[in-house]
């Protein structure tokens, strides 16, 4: 009964979605001519190069034009970790009983992971350092680093992600982000304003505060994701 009802509903939802998106032609140029700057995208494409000296427009948007979104997004992650911590909160006295659910891995996996982990971390760092130049950025880099940690976490049963370290990284990265924003507010009167000189396009050191923020975001994301994974993996065994 319920299933039939749901299927009918889903058919209708599908119908409406199709209907709606049939009006939005795939691959159509909705930006228009960039020189007219009628809409936001066109403006971004047209002005990013000159005004921010960032090669990757998406990065420019994420970190600068819509940097506030990103700040919020980082906050969401931070809050998710905090929330997770509070939802799966363990008292001190319960700490000892905590076990990682994963089975102990074979030594092959363990050794492999140990070799792979620095490489993965390096890749991640590369991705977020070059976030303003190439595809990728803080989130992607952070996610890659977290994958490395995940690898370590599931292959070593007693691998500790280092809570203090995570807190430090997390907080400092966050503080950096906000402080840079506030610095902009202080010096130029606008929160997150790009106060540093833009530099030359396609150089590693270019784009003013954008790479700095992205690096901070990268660290933060890495720390948060690792934290989340760490919490979710550590579970008190049931009796």
């Amino acid at each position, binding site marked *: 009964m*319920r299933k039939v009802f749901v299927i009918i*509903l*889903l058919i*209708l*939802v599908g119908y*409406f979605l199709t209907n709606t998106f049939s009006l939005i032609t795939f691959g159509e140029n909705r930006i228009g001519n960039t020189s007219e700057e009628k809409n936001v995208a066109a403006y971004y494409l047209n002005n990013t190069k000159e005004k921010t000296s960032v090669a990757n427009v998406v990065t420019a948007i994420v970190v600068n034009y819509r940097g506030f979104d990103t700040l919020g997004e980082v906050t969401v992650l931070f809050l998710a970790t905090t929330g997770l911590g509070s939802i799966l909160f363990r008292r001190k006295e319960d700490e000892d009983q905590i076990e990682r659910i994963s089975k102990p891995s074979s030594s092959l996996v363990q050794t492999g992971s140990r070799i792979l982990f620095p490489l993965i971390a390096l890749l991640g760092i590369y991705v977020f350092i070059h976030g303003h130049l190439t595809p990728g950025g803080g989130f992607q880099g952070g996610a890659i680093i977290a994958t490395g940690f995940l690898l370590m976490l599931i292959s070593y049963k007693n691998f500790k992600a280092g809570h203090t370290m995570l807190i430090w990284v997390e907080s400092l990265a966050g503080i950096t982000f906000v402080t840079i924003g506030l610095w902009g507010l202080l010096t130029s009167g606008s929160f997150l304003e790009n106060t540093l000189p833009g530099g030359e396009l396609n150089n590693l050191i270019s784009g003013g505060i954008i790479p700095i923020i992205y690096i901070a975001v990268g660290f933060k994301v890495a720390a948060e994701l690792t934290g989340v994974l760490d919490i979710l993996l550590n579970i008190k065994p049931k009796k």
Partner: protein
Amino acid sequence: MNSFFLILLILLAGAAISFALGKISSIISGTVAFLSIASASVLFFTQLKNNTYIEFPLGEIQLQWGIDSFGYIFALIVLGLGSLASLYSISYMQNKERTGIFYFNFVLVITSMVGIIFSQDFISFFIFWEIMTWSSYLLIIFNKKDVKEIGVKYMIFSAIGAYSMLTAIVMIKGNYNTFLISDAIQAGAFNFTNNEYIPILLLIGFAVKAATMPLHVWAPKAYSNSPMSFTVIFSGAMSKMGVLGMALVLVRIFTFNANNEAILPNFSPIILQQTLAWLGAITAVIATLYALMQDDAKKLLAYSSIAQLGYITVGLAIGTKLSVMAALFLAIVHGIFKGALFMVAGAVERQAGTTDMTKVSGLIRKMPFTFFTALIAIIALAGIPPLGGFVGKWMLYESLITESNSYFLVILVFFSSTSAFLYCYRFLFGLFLGQEEEATKDVKEAPITMIIPMLILSVLLMVTGAYPGILFDPIAKGMETIGFNNVTWDMSVLGNIWGNSVNMIYVWLTIVIVFIAAFIFLTLKGLKGTRYVSTKDISTSGEIPLEHENLTFQINFFQPFRRAAAPMYKRSMDKIWNEIGSGLESLFNFTRKIYTGNGQTYAIFVIAFLVLMLLLKDTLFLN
């Protein structure tokens, strides 16, 4: 400072201080309450001149306060009865718990009633009305008896009333763009033919407080369960606020229609008038029938109050000069005698511990003054000449018969008032007459602060009986304020010269002369030979009961009557309302089953709603 504010401030301060002092001593707290009410009364009657108004804005609404002759009538009831009741409650509330809360709400009720009288705009009227409602609610449940049933019922009905009033008020604002009562009247808001619902809604609102028929079910228990010193106000004065409102609206409806009869061939006002009058009469009958079946004196009085309010409603609904005058006169007199009776009940309750008439009897020797008050008040209540109660009843009948041709209504009203003798007698007999109970052997007369207000009220009843003109004076002025023209006291002369005080004096003279003569004769004759014996000495019926026996006939007192009138007891409004209530409750219980507790179901709701909206989007959002 403006006297209006000053009076309210004194009262509010009195409320606050007596609340604060409640923890320390109930006597001090009560004295403060009494002093504040008394001083406010003094201020009111000395400082305020009729037809003075002030205006000020609050919440972006222009408010107007003032006092006119019409409000003055009710101010007499409220402040007079309020002062006496607060004096009375000093002793009544002595040694009780939570007196602070009691006095706080007590004074607040008085304050809000004074506020209602002051209000010349609907908003402050409604505000004070609601304050009155909730503060009285707190007093009703003060005794912690049947709290849920009584309190909630009271609140429900009050809310029904208040909200229909509020609806009317905002509709007046919507249609006529004014909150001022006078402007609304000017604009014809009460004009029944233009918009029938505004006056009807207002009337529903007032009818609840006046305990008119289908809306009366809250009243019996609410009256009987609140502390008696408050019921004095509750039944004596608060219900009159409903009367005030009804008079205000009804008079407008009828005078308007009377003035425009030629233009408006519309019978709806007459239907309304008749409906309301019949409702009032039926209220009176039903309440009377229930009153005489009560074993608890307080409940008896409570039902009796409802019945009396029924007469007042009839009078107002008929809407002729004489009937309105009768209604207003009855309103004042009812305040006096019902106040006195509730005071009596309170005194008995305080001294004897209960007002259950099957448990108390023969108090006449212990509490002579209380009995005297009860006697006088009951005579007035029954409408027996020569007290004030009679004057009102007489005018009511005269107006019904001579002015409005509602003959069948008269029969109903008369039936009610004849049956009222039964419970009147029951009250006196149950508490004061009959053989004395062992349990009430050591009962003493109530303290002086309770006796004084009672005696004052009984004297007032006699005075209003002998000189009804002293009440006709303000009533006539008040009626002229609300739209009657040329209200003369002589107007009550309808082929016979009643209503004018001279004739009441004749009645008094006759009665007094006969009384004195007969009294002297009976007392002096065989003065020495007469033996004064206890109520146990009833040798003439053949058997002398022992000391511990009590032969007083109290249980199933009016059983023959009940058997005769059995069909009338079959249906009670209470049951009907309870059925409606429980029906609604189970309906609501069903609606909340929507929240099944299954998160997935909620999710399906969301998607289903989304789909529904998408299906309907064109009809809904295409403009």
